[in-house]
């Protein structure tokens, strides 16, 4: 039976709690991104040209950020379509829209973190302003 996904509104936790969960999700990924970017840019600077490594790191961050944004919008826009296609074609992989949004939020956070981290290292430490 291709049943409609139930939107049971009353079971949702209060808004502030929802927001908190989301912020923690993106925040953790963001911090991870900042750390990874800082460490790798500093390491890359020792080995090669600082401007080039900052540019590459920032571009990689924006790659993840953009990918995450597209994936998030895709999950929201196509969520039900993908779910019902998998059901009908017998290729269920447990894909659900909230799950996909969560994953994309992590990627968005991480990418943004890499961009911010690179910006920080680039402007403060290396003084490329």
């Amino acid at each position, binding site marked *: 039976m*291709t049943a409609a996904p139930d939107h049971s509104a009353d079971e949702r936790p209060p808004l502030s709690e929802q927001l908190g969960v989301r912020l923690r999700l993106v925040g953790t990924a963001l911090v991870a991104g900042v750390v990874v970017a800082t460490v790798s840019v500093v390491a890359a600077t020792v080995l090669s040209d600082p401007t080039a490594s900052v540019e590459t790191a920032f571009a990689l961050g924006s*790659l993840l950020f953009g990918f995450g944004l*597209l994936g998030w919008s895709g999950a929201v826009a196509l969520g039900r379509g993908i779910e019902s296609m998998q059901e009908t074609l017998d290729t269920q992989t447990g894909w659900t829209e909230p799950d996909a949004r969560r994953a994309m939020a992590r990627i968005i956070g991480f990418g943004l973190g890499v*961009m911010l981290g690179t910006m920080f290292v*680039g402007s403060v430490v290396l003084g490329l*302003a």
Partner: protein
Amino acid sequence: MISSRFVLKRLLLLVPVLVGVASLVFSILHLSPGDPALTIAGERASEEFVKQVEESLGLNDPIWVQYGRFIADAAQFQFGESFIIQRNTTVREVLVNKLPVTLELAIYGQLIGVFLGIPLGILSAVKQDSITDHLTRIGALAGISVPIFWSGPLLILLFAQVLGVLPTSGRISVLYNVEAIRVTGLVTVDTLIAGEWDMFVSAVRHMILPASVIGVYSMALISRMMRSSMLEVIRQDYIRTARAKGQGAKITVLKHGFRNAMIPVITVIGIQFGGLLGGAVLTETVFAIGGIGTLLVEAIKVGDYPIVQGTVLTFAFLFTLVNLGVDITYSILDPRIEQ
């Protein structure tokens, strides 16, 4: 029923799509080996001129400043001017010219896919495991095995060269000036609006082969989806009950099955529209129809990044809008879903 709030929310999704595409293009621009300043100035340009180009594009600013400017421009649909393909023309102008070409091809291709795929799928399901079923399934498999860039040339050779009944390439006979009557940019529509019957016939004749080639692809997927969806519905209890009550098999299927079986198929039509756009790139090349598909290929080849960005964004927008339409259709077919 669908609410205007839902539609508005979906349209707002275009904002993250836009920023996402812009970020991706930005990163590709900075990760790919070519130097954009050198590309614009030309390989043989003097060092001084290259510096000048770098300056004017702001390529010497820190990368995050460049990123901020890039996103801000994209948000206002300012993709700048084409570097190479049409120098001194804004990307927007180029796109406005080329988009209807691809759109027209995609619309007719999709129509062919839907109106052939759905009946074939139903036929296959109702006569499961009969010869008709097997033939349809093998046909669908053959349909996806034959690449567009082979079926296209073969059809051109047969219908244009051997039989001489259809034109080889292009959108309309060179004798006519379509630009003079341009309203929507879709030649089959413009010629009708202008009441030019001869021109309309010419446009339709040019459309038949490319639209069929592209339509066969979506037909294969739609018929497969329709078949399995229909089989599932037929197996369900209420159909059996209806049959037990003595209604004929055909009537039962049409009355109860079709509407329910359509629901998953509709969503798939939305998702495979992306594949259709990919097919448009090849079809445009084979039939020498200059739409945004060939534009994208050319732009990637020569490194005309403003065009690449504009084209990719247009593809993404088309895809999002088509799926919004699908969602609206979906909620009409299945009133259980509240938006």
